[in-house]
């Protein structure tokens, strides 16, 4: 029997009432409001996930999709105007916003036929501390997908039973789906290069001969 899913605000309060101390944050989603998501801290993720799976109103028994997203460090500019000594001066303040890696879980309920509920976790940064909680102990179906996120993004999943590279070979050092990954340069032969490929290919070509 299909059961309507509580709206996300309701779900959030359900979750916070059931698990005191667990804080979640609602992430709105402009174009598809029905697919807004809940962010949980990695320390709370396991408890929250178990609640979502086991609560009789929710019964989100399948984790359908696990995605990694890379949000690199960015610079935010804030311009403020102030009147100093009677002259209007503009000060531009550049603030570095540290980046992070995000893991998104799409949960569905097969038994109650509703969903999706979208759960997100964030790592502290993109460097030395990119650990989130693994949800494989809760949903078996996350196993390979979390390995994939680890392989391609470098997110470490605490509690994953078998965290190894899955698509690239062992001994590969990079995490290619990160935005700042630079692919190996093998553009020696590009018959029809354009855009970025042209720029890369040029490094291999002899300097264009001067036209007579």
């Amino acid at each position, binding site marked *: 029997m299909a059961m309507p899913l509580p709206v996300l605000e309701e779900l959030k309060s359900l979750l916070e009432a059931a698990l005191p101390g667990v804080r979640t944050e609602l992430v709105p989603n402009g174009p598809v409001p029905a697919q807004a998501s809940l962010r949980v801290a990695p320390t709370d993720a396991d408890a929250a996930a178990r609640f979502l799976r086991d609560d009789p109103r929710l019964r989100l028994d399948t984790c359908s999709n696990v995605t990694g997203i890379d949000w690199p460090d960015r610079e935010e500019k804030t311009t403020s105007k102030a009147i100093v000594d009677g002259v209007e001066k503009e000060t531009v303040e550049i603030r570095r916003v540290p980046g992070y890696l995000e893991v998104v879980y799409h949960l569905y309920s097969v038994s109650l036929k509703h969903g999706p509920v979208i759960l997100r976790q964030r790592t502290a940064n993109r460097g030395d501390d990119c650990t989130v909680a693994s949800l494989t102990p809760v949903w078996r179906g996350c196993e390979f997908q979390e390995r994939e996120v680890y392989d391609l993004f470098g997110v470490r999943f605490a509690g994953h039973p078998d965290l190894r590279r899955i698509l690239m070979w062992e001994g590969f050092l990079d995490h290619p789906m990160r935005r700042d990954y630079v692919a190996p340069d093998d553009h020696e032969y590009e018959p029809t290069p354009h855009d970025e490929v042209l720029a890369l290919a040029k490094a*291999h070509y002899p300097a264009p001969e001067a036209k007579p």
Partner: protein
Amino acid sequence: MIDEGLKNELAKQGVVATSLQELYNWGRSNSVWPLSFGLACCAIEMIAASMSRWDISRFGSEVFRPSPRQADLMIVAGTVTKKMAPQVVRLYNQMPEPKYVIAMGACAISGGPFKQGYNVLKGIDRLLPVDIHIPGCPPRPEALLHALIALQEKIAGEKLTGPNRPRHLRADAPSEFPVPEFGPHDLVPPKNDALWKPIPFVRAG
């Protein structure tokens, strides 16, 4: 060497005169056994070519061998990724001479649509000598048959003696090629420099 005119004349009388070279090449070219080795989407068209509609057995090549030891022809049907490339080379090395390679599809030729991929080898030419290239994404089964016929013609035209004799009759020509290793960022070496030289390219205009 028999005179061509005399040979044709004899053939009209029902007498077949041939040379050992022709007989040898005729036999080889009409029983090219491919390695059953599919990499990606192009392999489905390769299978389609071996099914009843296109029926590759009309050309003597229906015997797809699962073992490289029994195969004459490697049809590289699909994208060669960097993770797969060492295995492709190893399979080629395991095939006995004489052996031939058909690069089927844009991916095997140059990386095709996936050329920008970090894990995609930009053409199997970089690691193996290719005899026939078939463009297309995927090439139709007819195109594969065409390539097979072209290969048969190539085999039939091979000279068994002289300086232009094929690789398998020359002691100095390599029949195995170095297998690249997995490196920390890429294959090591990423290409076989002795084999593949990029065509010098100068942008017009």
